[in-house]
């Protein structure tokens, strides 16, 4: 009977000589002992993970079927009513739309900016390390600190943004930034870019550095100009990194909370509200915990479906032997 657990070395380290097969009882006992020692190492992580990561999701699913204010017994079972209400709620549907809008902006503005900066910094250049360190610095700040900083800068009237707009002859923007439903999302996006483009730049730099120089040299010898080399050699080889970067941007947009909560709390008039903000509003400000749980569940389903779909169809080909995976560390 094969022992269910074997260390990499077990065969050679038993005290019984290999010629004599071990008695079944002992083998069973050894199996239990090995299992026990594996369990000893694995259980703390499993318990932590089950209690604080998986159990909350089960709690959310359960609570989402009730109409419940958050205190007292949960008795008012409503089935899928919370979900029906959710998908009839204009604010929630707007959350989805605004999420897509921010994702679209990230993919068309932020990632190209990050890639462009990475390409500039991937050549021999004086002060390269300083630029790199500088561009990445906002990433290590918390979203709250970033949010308060930009709230102050965007203050109507006295803030730097309004003063600057006045001097540049852009009076039309004054007093609007976060206060006007039509400018609030683009303004938030600029702040997100300020904070996160350096992170994507770092990913791209790691990807670029793992592209062997010979490949680009060979293309140059064949007469490809700089743009052609970038378009036909660098970009395809950077594919895995770009796909990861897109994935992280989307997940980031889905869960966006801190920045928006501190800067606008979802306003004015829901025009910058995200799913996480809606969930927080209903769960902690309006005490409709059942409904807020349903939002959590939908948030979870969206991330899960997106992740599985993305890993299945987009990342699959990158999982073995991708250029960037080897060079990243």
């Amino acid at each position: 009977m094969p022992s269910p657990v074997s260390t990499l070395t077990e065969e050679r380290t038993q005290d019984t000589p290999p010629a004599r097969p071990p008695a079944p009882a002992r083998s069973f006992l050894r199996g239990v002992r090995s299992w026990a020692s594996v369990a000893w190492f694995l259980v703390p992580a499993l318990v932590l993970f089950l209690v604080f990561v998986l159990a909350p999701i089960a709690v959310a699913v359960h609570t989402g079927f009730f109409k419940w204010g958050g205190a007292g017994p949960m008795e008012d079972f409503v089935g899928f009513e919370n979900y029906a209400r959710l998908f009839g709620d204009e604010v929630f549907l707007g959350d989805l739309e605004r999420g897509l809008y921010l994702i679209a902006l990230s993919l068309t503005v932020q990632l190209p900016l990050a890639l462009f900066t990475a390409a500039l910094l991937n050549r021999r250049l004086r002060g390269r390390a300083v630029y790199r360190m500088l561009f990445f610095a906002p990433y290590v700040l918390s979203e709250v600190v970033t949010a308060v900083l930009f709230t102050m800068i965007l203050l109507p009237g006295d803030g730097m943004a309004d003063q600057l707009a006045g001097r540049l002859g852009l009076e039309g923007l004054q007093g609007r930034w976060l206060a006007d439903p039509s400018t609030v999302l683009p303004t938030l996006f600029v702040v997100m870019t300020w904070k996160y483009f350096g992170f994507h730049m770092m990913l791209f730099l790691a990807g670029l550095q793992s592209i062997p120089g010979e490949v680009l040299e060979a293309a140059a010898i064949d007469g490809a100009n700089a743009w052609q080399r970038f378009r036909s050699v660098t970009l395809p080889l950077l594919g895995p990194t770009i796909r990861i970067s897109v994935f992280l941007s989307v997940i980031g947009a889905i869960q966006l909370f801190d920045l928006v909560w501190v800067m606008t709390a979802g306003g004015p008039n829901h025009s910058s509200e995200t799913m996480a903000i809606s969930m927080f509003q209903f769960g902690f400000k309006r005490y409709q915990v059942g409904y807020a749980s349903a939002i959590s569940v939908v948030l979870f389903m969206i991330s899960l479906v997106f992740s599985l779909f993305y890993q299945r169809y987009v990342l699959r080909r990158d999982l073995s032997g991708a250029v960037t995976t080897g060079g990243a560390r």
Partner: protein
Amino acid sequence: MKARSRVRGLSLHAVLWLIGAFVVVPLGYAVISGFKSTGELTANPFGLPGHWKAGNYTGILGDAVFWRQIANSAGIAIGTTCCTVAVSAMAAFVLARYAFRGRELFYTLFTIGLMFPFAVAVLPLFLLLRTFGLLDNPLGVILPQAAFGLPMTIVILRGFFRTIPAELEEAAVMDGCGKFRFFWRILLPMARPALGTVSVLAVVASWNNFFLPLLVFNDPRWQTIPVGVQQFQGQYSTDYAFVFAYVVLAMVPALAFYAVAERQLIGGLTAGATKG
């Protein structure tokens, strides 16, 4: 030819300066504004202060509340890091080096955690913590943060543990070294660079967390720096210069940590992203 490449080099630097200005101007503006009085800030928003006023900064640095928030953030970050790294290292050890039934299943279970964001779980987590009586208790922040840190930490550490050759373990076992001693005395010391990387990631994630401390700590004594900054802005919303000074001081620990641990942080993030 040479002139042309000089021009190109200059325009390259011009573009980088432009991007650099986008990053630096808000930070520099905050630092300088912190040295002004609020009256001067509205009258002279861009220039250097006519009179450098250190009072905003020294006032905050002399305030026990600020230091308590720093201490709370630091304590929670250290607790989270120790917990997540210790527990992950043990799990990653068996997941990397032992063949047992269900191993890949366990590993997949942990990697699922990479896929969904913290915001998803925060409301039910709050309900659970309330049931456990962990509200207004640092463990109520430390344990969930540690749990959410597990997937990334396990992925990175397992990858590293796999690179350590089996011969080493064989030799150790021949010399009478048990599993636990091998793990503790040989594997962990060898894995110091990887442990450094995952620790740095855990510290930064914990230091910057806002959502969970906001919910768990009702008692201001436990407030962490991100929660404190937000409260401070609400409290002194008209004293702009004072708020700028607070924001700048709240940034200092994170930036200092970045300056010290730049290599681990960036290495860990790029590795984590590409492997996860």
